[in-house]
């Protein structure tokens, strides 16, 4: 009987004007290759977030959608909320 555990990116969403990245990770437990458990963990990343330690796919999306204009708009929003 072999028990394995893996974490995958189940869903990546780019949300709203500020291109917030919402990422859902699924942790899957398998017994002899058959899934017996799955749980979800999420994280979100704003345009000023440090994603350098995240999965390459997350970094690629961040680099693509977090343009200078988006980052500037996000910072302007944060400043207005202070």
């Amino acid at each position, binding site marked *: 009987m072999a028990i394995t555990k893996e974490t995958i990116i189940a869903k990546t969403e780019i*949300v*709203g*004007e*500020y291109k*917030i990245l*919402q990422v*859902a990770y699924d942790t899957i437990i398998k017994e002899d290759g058959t899934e017996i458990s799955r*749980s*979800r*963990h*999420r*994280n*979100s*990343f*704003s345009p000023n*977030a440090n994603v350098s330690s995240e999965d390459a796919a997350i970094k690629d999306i961040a680099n693509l959608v977090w343009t200078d204009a988006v980052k500037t708009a996000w910072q302007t*929003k*944060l400043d207005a*909320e*202070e």
Partner: protein
Amino acid sequence: MALTKLTTSSITGDTLAAGDIAADAITASELADNAVDTAAVADNAVTLAKMASGTDGNIISYDASGNPVAIATGNDGMVLTSTGAGSPPAFEAVAASVSLTAIPTGSAGSPSLAHAGDTDTGIYFATNQINFATAGNNRVELLADGNLSIRQESLKFETANKGVYLGTTSGAAANLLNDYEEGTWTPSWSAGGGSLTGTSNNYGKYTKIGDMVSLWFGATIDSGTASGYYRITNAPFTSTTNGSGSYVSSQSGHMGTVWWDSGGTTVNMSKYDATLETDPNLKVNIIMKV
């Protein structure tokens, strides 16, 4: 001299050859009744070519008197149907619906309607009830009162973002419940002013139903010079509205306000006083529209 009458006994075998009798020389009037009976006709002597011509597609049957009759071909798609005793069959249109009333009740292990290759998967019946079985197990029942009962397992949509329209018959998008999710996340803590250098007992859980997300999160604020307010910057979903709530802390009497803005994932929590929430933690439960 006139010929004397020929009798059967005066004609010996092979006396007459085919060419000795003129064409049309023997007609019905020359044959006594029953002169040619079944015994006089050899097996296979009457071929299709010797039968009278008919209409293409017709079928030979017998009428109430036992006489042969031709059954008209009918039209494309019709089926040959018995019309009962004393009447030849007929081609008739297939009925719009067929009622099969002799189907046995069946069981989950041996459904009434199943295909030969998988006899424990199919449909079976109870009084005023239809049951659906797979692999010998009763899975779904359509009950007498109209309710659909799922006996085992769950309702699973094979296409994302499909769901159930609740409280309407119009299928309006506003009534479609097509998303549910529960899980965890790890809040990332910081401070509105000063710094927040250490947290422990950090936790975050969420349940999303449609566009409503409930968040439960908290932490022990161990160290730092945080002033003004605490905040987490990575709520698992992006709020589409401004919002507010309150929190309480295990630290005696400590409570505060919680607020967030539309379009982001930051949630702010006012500090109760100059002390940190170290005993043991700050607890927040809010509902966010996403």
